């Protein structure tokens, strides 16, 4: 890898960082993309699901006769049969008795859990038949309150596990006791992050086909899942090479949640059992209720110790997370924030107590940022509290505590090293772009007119280059220390270049990324470079686009492979020109003698030698022109220490949000009047793509902050199973956003790039909490429970107003 690219170098790239429309776009605007539900194989049968209506119930019997009598109904699969024929899924923490299968195994542990699957000639017929499946349930005691689960005062979700606590540990990094005792001030606060998720517009879809002659299972699925083929094979008791996952399926959004192990295992089991292709497409209710894709549902108790000058000395964070009825990878979402547990601040010690508990709710899945966005809300709310106590400007408080740009690499108390940044510059750029002085005037004008208005400030980190170091941190039996990604580059006889990637994409423009990087290294037009996707049997190792990693990892792998090609071309030329390689220079595919431009070999000649003229190849070189590169995550390769100190993700992007929110005091409705985001993710491979993800992340965070919640009744029933009650913000609620770019290259990556797939989302909820509380402060109200819905804001206003009236009357 090239060392330490500077900002100056970033401007010298030929294709990287330049405006270039993503090469994926034409297929999406013409209806020529292929999503999983578009895969059409003759003879395909369709699945409809039977779900438990109870939060917790024993499945006493399932009668299938009436369903099977429906013409066109082919099969009814019960949990009993499926669980006997498949293995339980792998989970992230050491809790082997928390077993999950694709259908309930005798006991349904949340309302909406699938208990049976019906297969028919069409989806309509399958749904007709599903309504005729007769399930007899015995309702069982249940728990919906995670605090009760944490205290051991609730019915057990998995009695075999012996507790509802999946994971609990208190980490202490540095002299927390001493720092709290010595500080001038201490403050405590509670922050609640409501249960929301990314809720892509495409639900999960899978088509499975089993070939009994070749003993090969073909899968087309809308997945974003590390080690997906291995996990599917494990559950189905198949060798890994009996599962072929087709990564050339377009995925209609994911942002973490499209894991789909259970859907795929179910469809694959049926395809094998019935010897026909089987399609399972969630409808929206199944997706919201039984799709197992809810995000973190987390309460933070935060204590902060600080001095009168604004210097924050120490943090204590207790994070209680409700993962629902099964484990999966969800408890690990408490682990990822360890890598940025003090945010962008020079906080010398920290205590962190993550507690992962189960309740009788839909299971949690990975959501954009893997637990970092809620944690950032807690950290930022604490910083705002410090500023409020000290009556200090919130931006100034942050400046006082920021790690300075000359302090990198900077190791935080929990052991992770931040690679680079200039937090002061980015915040100041954002404040300048927002014209903070003018913004304050606007805010105060609204207030003087009797309105409520607040300015929000949030400065957050985006850890990137996902490496899964939280796996060994949270599970000592797991010794994962690599999270590699790969690329194959081939140049064919015609001289055309193809880059082969090894995973699916869900809107991140990875084909553009690969083509741009290969084009950069080989100095060939990226538009001429095709990017293909290997299926899982042909693929090199990949860990999928999770953890804001692909610009770093796929970009690094593509560059590594392209450099091998370039080196090979130089060596072929050296051999044929009779010159040492050092005497040659590479220029747009041609290789030219440094001092004698007449001595050269053109791209086409070099390619022809590689493919046809072995007699002209340098000795020892393999024929053809192809190279692969498998790259380990920078900084990877070590296990956590006994004290839990760990190098989490390698690269740290930074974002500074400045927002003005006006609240209608009569009805509590918030309106975002101004939104600016300063953003530094190092060198951008494609700025348009990065900006797009940041805009989208901000919108997603606005949803989590103001609108979206998977609410549950006291009976454990999901109250938000449609888009009429789970409110996804539209173009009417999302404002125009201004992004202000800054570039601090990472010293760890090929071109100085950092990740940005989770950008925006990691800071916008914190910024809105800051703004709403600034708006409510003049009336003495506060609100730190997300989502801060119009109703919740109205209640906060009404409570204070009525108390104020009572107090005034009493006086």
């Amino acid at each position, binding site marked *: 890898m090239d060392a330490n690219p500077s900002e100056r170098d970033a401007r010298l790239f030929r294709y990287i960082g330049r405006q270039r429309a993503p090469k994926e776009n034409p297929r999406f605007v013409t209806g020529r993309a292929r999503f999983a539900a578009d895969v059409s194989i003759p003879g395909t049968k369709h699945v409809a699901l039977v779900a438990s209506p109870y939060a917790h119930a024993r499945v006493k019997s399932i009668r299938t006769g009436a369903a099977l009598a429906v013409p066109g109904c082919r099969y009814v699969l019960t949990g009993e049969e499926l669980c006997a024929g498949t293995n339980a899924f792998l989970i992230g923490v050491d809790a082997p008795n928390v077993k999950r299968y694709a259908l309930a195994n005798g006991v349904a542990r949340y309302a909406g859990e699938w208990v049976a699957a019906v297969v028919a000639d069409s989806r*309509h017929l399958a749904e007709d038949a599903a309504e005729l499946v007769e399930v007899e349930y015995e309702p069982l005691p249940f728990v919906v309150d995670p605090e009760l689960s944490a205290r051991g005062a609730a019915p057990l979700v998995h009695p075999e596990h012996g507790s509802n606590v999946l994971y609990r540990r208190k980490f202490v990094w540095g002299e927390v006791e001493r720092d709290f005792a010595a500080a001038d001030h201490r403050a405590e606060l509670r922050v609640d992050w409501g249960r929301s998720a990314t809720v892509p517009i495409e639900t999960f879809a899978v088509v499975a086909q089993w070939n009994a002659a070749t003993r090969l299972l073909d899968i087309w699925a809308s997945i974003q899942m590390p080690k997906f083929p291995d996990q599917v094979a494990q559950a189905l008791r198949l060798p890994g090479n009996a599962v072929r996952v087709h990564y050339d399926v377009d995925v209609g959004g994911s942002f973490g949640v499209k894991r789909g192990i259970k859907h795929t295992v179910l469809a694959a089991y049926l395809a094998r059992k019935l010897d026909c292709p089987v399609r399972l497409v969630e409808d929206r209710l199944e997706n919201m209720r039984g799709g197992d894709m809810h995000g973190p549902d987390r309460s933070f108790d935060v204590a902060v110790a600080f001095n009168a000058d604004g210097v924050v000395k120490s943090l204590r964070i207790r994070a209680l997370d409700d993962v629902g009825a099964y484990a999966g990878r969800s408890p690990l979402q408490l682990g990822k924030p360890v890598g940025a547990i003090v945010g962008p601040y020079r906080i010398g010690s920290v205590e962190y107590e993550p507690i992962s508990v189960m309740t009788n709710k839909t299971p949690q899945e990975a959501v954009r940022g893997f637990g970092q966005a809620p944690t950032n809300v807690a950290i930022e709310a604490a910083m705002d509290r410090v500023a409020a106590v000290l009556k200090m400007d919130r931006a100034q408080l942050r400046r006082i505590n920021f790690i300075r740009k000359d302090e990198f690499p900077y190791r935080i108390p929990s052991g992770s090293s931040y690679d680079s940044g200039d937090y002061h510059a980015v915040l100041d750029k954002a404040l300048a772009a927002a014209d903070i002085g003018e913004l304050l005037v606007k805010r105060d004008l609204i207030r003087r007119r009797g309105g409520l208005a607040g300015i929000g400030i949030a400065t957050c980190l985006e850890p990137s280059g996902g490496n899964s170091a939280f796996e060994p941190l949270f599970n000592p039996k797991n010794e994962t220390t690599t999270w590699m990604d790969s690329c194959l580059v081939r140049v064919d006889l015609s001289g055309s270049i193809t880059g082969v990637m090894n995973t699916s994409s869900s809107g991140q423009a990875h084909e553009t990324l690969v083509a741009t990087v290969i084009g950069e290294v080989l100095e060939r037009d990226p538009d001429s470079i095709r990017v293909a996707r290997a299926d899982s049997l042909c693929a090199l190792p990949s860990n999928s686009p999770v953890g804001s990693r692909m610009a770093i990892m796929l970009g690094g792998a593509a560059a590594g492979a392209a450099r091998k090609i370039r080196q090979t071309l130089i060596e072929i030329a050296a051999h044929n020109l009779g010159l040492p390689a050092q005497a040659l220079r590479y220029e747009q595919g041609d290789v030219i003698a440094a001092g004698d431009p007449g001595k050269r070999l053109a791209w086409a000649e070099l390619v022809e030698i590689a493919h046809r003229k072995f007699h002209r190849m340098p000795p020892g070189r393999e024929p053809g022109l192809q190279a692969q590169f498998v790259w380990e995550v920078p900084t990877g390769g070590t296990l956590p220490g006994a004290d839990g100190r760990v190098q989490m993700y390698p690269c740290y992007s930074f974002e500074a949000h400045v927002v003005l929110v006006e609240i209608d005091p009569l009805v509590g409705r918030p309106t975002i009047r101004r939104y600016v985001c300063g953003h530094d993710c190092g060198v951008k491979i494609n700025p348009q793509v990065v900006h797009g993800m940041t805009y989208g992340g901000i919108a997603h965070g606005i949803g989590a902050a103001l609108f979206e919640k998977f609410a549950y009744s006291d009976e454990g029933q999901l109250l938000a199973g449609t888009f009429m009650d789970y409110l996804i913000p539209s173009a009417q609620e999302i404002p125009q956003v201004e992004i202000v770019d800054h570039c601090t290259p990472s010293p760890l990556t090929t071109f100085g790039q950092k990740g940005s797939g989770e950008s925006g989302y990691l800071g916008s909820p914190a910024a809105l909490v800051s703004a709403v509380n600034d708006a409510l402060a003049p009336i003495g109200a506060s609100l730190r429970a997300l989502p801060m819905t119009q109703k919740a804001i109205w209640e906060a206003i009404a409570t204070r107003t009525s108390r104020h009236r009572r107090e005034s009357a009493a006086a």
Partner: protein
Amino acid sequence: MSERRYRVTIEVNGVERQAEVPARLTLVDLLRDELGLTGTHVGCEHGVCGACSVMLDGEPVRSCCMFAVQADGSRVTTVEGLEQDAGKLSVLQQAFCDGHGLQCGYCTPGMLIAAQGLLDTTPDPTDAQIRDAIGGNLCRCTGYQQIVDSIKLAVARLDGRSR
């Protein structure tokens, strides 16, 4: 329990198509499953997300909330019918490509239909009119900004010309 079927005749993307459909078949299922036009997507099946939007006699409608038999005798345009000629993108489609008015592409066909509906009636829309026109189409990737910008790019390129 064989379902009674009804003959429908619908002009889809300029071509007359006939089908025998059960009364409960939605228009989107007809387009996708019977006619093979998978560019139109299903997002929520309860009329909120707009991914299934198609033009019905020149106006955007939700094809998930409409039965195929209700479209009998109508003209339907799907995303596949937006191209001017085969392989030649419309100004709006090209603007979405150039402006990166999409990411995963799942909501995109519905967005294009909604935007086309706007441009057909309002050649020079304001930002508020654009946001209003796509206000019934949900997107989880873009935060809508590059969609709005792409529509504005199309408006600028059209500059009053017919679409």
